[in-house]
């Protein structure tokens, strides 16, 4: 069978489609970013494409469900379910493209004394001669001992392989990089001493290039995690790794390739090379952590959700395929449990929540929301399955925080005021906008506290058997289809926000702490940074506390990684925090169901003795 040539429009990418390769797989291989939330199972309907010309396989049952007969006739298909039968031209609509994203890299700078695990020593060696024919490495180690009092018992094999050529080309002038009694690299005398702190998220990856000599951040950059092409959530990626041995290898490789590219870009900003990165620290949720280290993942997602390892891991960067200094290590911070990862530990570290004297609640909101309660010197954590609604998933017009997403919204009488990312005409609504919309609909009594859309309200219509609220009408949208919030969307949001509130409440109850006692609420993560906290309180996602007790801290996980990069003391702290936190499993908690029911209601409320009490605190 000859391979068919597939061209993807409007991006204009063309390439051969392999045998038994779906359009989605072909697109991903060719670098065309098509959304896939379910990982190619045909259930999420995010990979809609239109076949412009050419023959393809018959529609699968899931496609008959996804499209009307007219749409099918127009060539609409799910890329993951469609296999080419001839050369094809495929149109990828904007909605199905993985768009460039707003990625958050900034966060609070924390002060610690700089004490990195790698030390760099300047050396000027005498050139060997027939009279002094000592071996190159021995000469260098000897000089290290004599001049700097540093004894090295080990040399990294990668460093050793290049040492002879390098010393000669540098005229015997170099910098020796020593880590824990091991010579891991040598540098030219003008080279930087760089470190990489990496927050490896399910959706986003944030990298920070740090000067190891003084702890300054020299450059920061965020990219999308390319594993998204293989499934948007942790579960579908783990599925992929479990299903075939190649799956895990491939997932690891795309992540590492992206990290290498990120390193090159970061280094380019300071005119350096990735080989000058002498140490890296990685934080991430436990699934990302396991996939990066190629650890077994199946047991992670099956009850009782056990990680392969919780304590910190140190591994040579090259074992992971990371192209930094020869013998450099990657230090991976410890995790707490299967669903509370090193990123959460890192956040507790960076925000100082771990040693908070007053009762503190710390949250990292995402597809999985991790919550920690610091109460009377004890830390308890849990993880809530808040789902993809806040990332725009399962929401009819939901999208990620990218250009064209409605990110803020107010309803003023019957006028809808909104702001989009990039100030362009709206194409959908992202998490912070969705949260605002829910709060505004509730405040204007368009939905009741149970979340039901009321009849006979302006901008409410019945469409395909359910009510929906029109955010941007067809007229307001220049003739393009209206952007709406459906009754079903509201239910998804209620499930998401109830999961978070339930997590908070279960922690409070198991610690015997009253809601009012919470003195500060730390909200970390990209979504948490952009939300309007007042909206989150209005819908009862967060406890009804005075607004001034809430603190939005940005990418605290990345900041924690930076601390661990430059400070051995911070690493020891992270280890101590991770091992002392007690994990509370939510789903098996007897209080879960009744609290969850209560927490699905909208409005400001507090839980008092397990009962929901309306609250009117304005501020």
């Amino acid at each position, binding site marked *: 069978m000859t391979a068919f040539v597939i061209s993807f429009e409007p991006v204009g990418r063309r390439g051969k489609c392999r045998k038994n390769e779906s359009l989605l797989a072909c697109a991903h291989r060719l670098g065309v970013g098509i959304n896939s939330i*379910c990982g190619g*199972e*045909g*259930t999420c309907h995010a990979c809609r494409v239109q076949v412009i010309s050419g023959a393809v396989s018959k529609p699968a*049952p*899931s496609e008959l469900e996804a499209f009307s007969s007219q749409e099918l006739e127009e060539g609409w298909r799910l890329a993951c379910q469609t296999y080419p039968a001839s050369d094809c031209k495929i149109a990828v609509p904007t909605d199905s493209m993985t768009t460039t994203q707003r990625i958050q890299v900034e966060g609070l700078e924390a002060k610690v004394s700089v004490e990195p695990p790698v030390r760099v020593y300047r050396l000027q060696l005498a050139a060997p001669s027939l009279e002094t024919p000592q071996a190159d490495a021995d000469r260098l180690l000897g000089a290290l001992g004599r001049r700097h009092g540093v004894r090295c018992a080990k040399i990294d094999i990668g460093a050793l392989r290049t040492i002879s050529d390098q010393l000669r080309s540098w005229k015997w002038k170099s910098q020796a990089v020593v880590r824990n009694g091991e010579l891991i690299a040598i540098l030219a005398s003008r080279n930087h001493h760089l470190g990489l702190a990496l927050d490896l998220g399910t959706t986003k990856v944030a990298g920070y290039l740090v000067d190891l000599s003084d702890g300054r951040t020299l450059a920061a950059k965020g990219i999308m995690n390319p594993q998204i092409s293989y499934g948007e959530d942790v*579960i*579908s990626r*783990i*599925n992929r790794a*479990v299903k075939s041995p190649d799956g895990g290898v491939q997932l690891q490789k795309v992540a590492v390739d992206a990290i290498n590219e990120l390193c090159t870009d970061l280094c380019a900003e300071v005119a350096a090379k990735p080989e000058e990165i002498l140490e890296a620290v990685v934080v991430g949720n436990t699934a990302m952590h396991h996939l990066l280290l190629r650890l077994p993942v*199946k047991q992670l*997602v*099956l*009850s009782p959700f056990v990680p392969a390892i919780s304590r910190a891991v140190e591994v040579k960067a090259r074992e992971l395929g990371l192209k930094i200094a020869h013998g450099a290590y990657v230090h991976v911070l410890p995790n707490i449990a299967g669903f509370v990862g090193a990123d959460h530990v890192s956040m507790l570290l960076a925000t100082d929540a771990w040693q908070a004297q007053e009762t503190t609640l710390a949250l990292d909101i995402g597809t999985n929301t991790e919550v920690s309660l610091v109460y009377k010197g004890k830390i308890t954590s849990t993880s809530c399955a808040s789902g993809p609604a806040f990332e725009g998933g399962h929401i009819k017009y939901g999208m990620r925080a990218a250009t064209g997403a409605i990110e803020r919204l107010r309803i003023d009488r019957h006028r809808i005021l909104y702001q989009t990312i990039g100030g362009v005409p709206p194409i959908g609504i992202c998490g912070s906008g969705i949260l605002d919309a829910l709060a505004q609909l509730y405040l204007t009594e368009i939905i009741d506290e*149970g*979340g*039901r859309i009321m009849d006979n309200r302006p901008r409410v219509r019945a469409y395909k*058997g*359910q*009510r929906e609220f029109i955010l941007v009408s067809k007229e307001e949208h220049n003739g393009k289809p209206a952007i709406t919030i*459906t*009754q*079903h969307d*509201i*239910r998804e949001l*209620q499930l998401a926000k109830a999961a978070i509130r339930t997590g908070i409440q279960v922690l409070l109850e198991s610690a015997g702490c009253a809601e009012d006692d919470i003195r500060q609420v730390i909200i970390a993560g990209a979504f948490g940074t952009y939300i309007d906290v007042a909206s989150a309180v209005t819908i009862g996602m967060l406890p009804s506390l005075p607004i001034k007790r809430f603190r939005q801290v940005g990418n605290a996980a990345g900041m924690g990684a930076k601390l661990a990069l430059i400070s051995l003391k911070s690493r020891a702290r992270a280890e101590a925090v991770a091992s002392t936190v007690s994990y509370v499993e939510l*789903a*098996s908690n007897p209080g879960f*169901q009744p609290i*969850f*029911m*209560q927490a*699905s*209601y909208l409005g400001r409320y507090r839980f008092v003795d397990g009962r929901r009490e309306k609250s009117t605190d304005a501020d």
Partner: protein
Amino acid sequence: MAKDLVKALSDLKEQEVVKIVEERLKAKEDPLKILEDARKGMEVVGKRFASSEYFIPDLVYSGEILKSVTELVKPKLTKETETKKLGKVVLGTVAGDIHDIGKDIVVFMLDVNGFEVHDLGVDVPPQKFVEKIKETGAPIVGLSGFLTLAFDSMKQTVEAIKAAGLRDKVKVMIGGGQITDEVTRYTSADAYGKDAVAGVALAKKWAGVK
């Protein structure tokens, strides 16, 4: 009058429901007829839930209203008129998975539709399903799982039922977030229900109820 009860219950108006039931009992109406209307009301609740109009707390509330109806009616039921159950169903979330909200909704809906439901809970090993089927003689089995990795557990459960020589005595339905026809084939189940209402419809079909 019949319509009032169906409407009041489906609109979740507890006081009205109680009032109507009390009046009808006073008028010496057949208690079974009252229960039948209550069931019809619950059917409407189920439909509204399926279309997102009602939410989980509404469902729970409707269950509470139904409970007060049965409490009122029960003393009037003679032994013979005791409602006959439509059939037995053994149901649970399969091994490795601990999601219970979806499963609980199915249990609830089967229950209010007149099935005798044996709920095994979550993270249920295959052997426990087999034992319960043997013990109850239930002809219908429901396997719930939200995780895609639960599909393997479903498959193993169906295999265990087969190994126990019970496969041709039971119909197996599966349900959960991500299930498709392909998953049904993979697990060798008989059918899948995309939501609780579909699950009840399957059970009714298998129990020979219209």
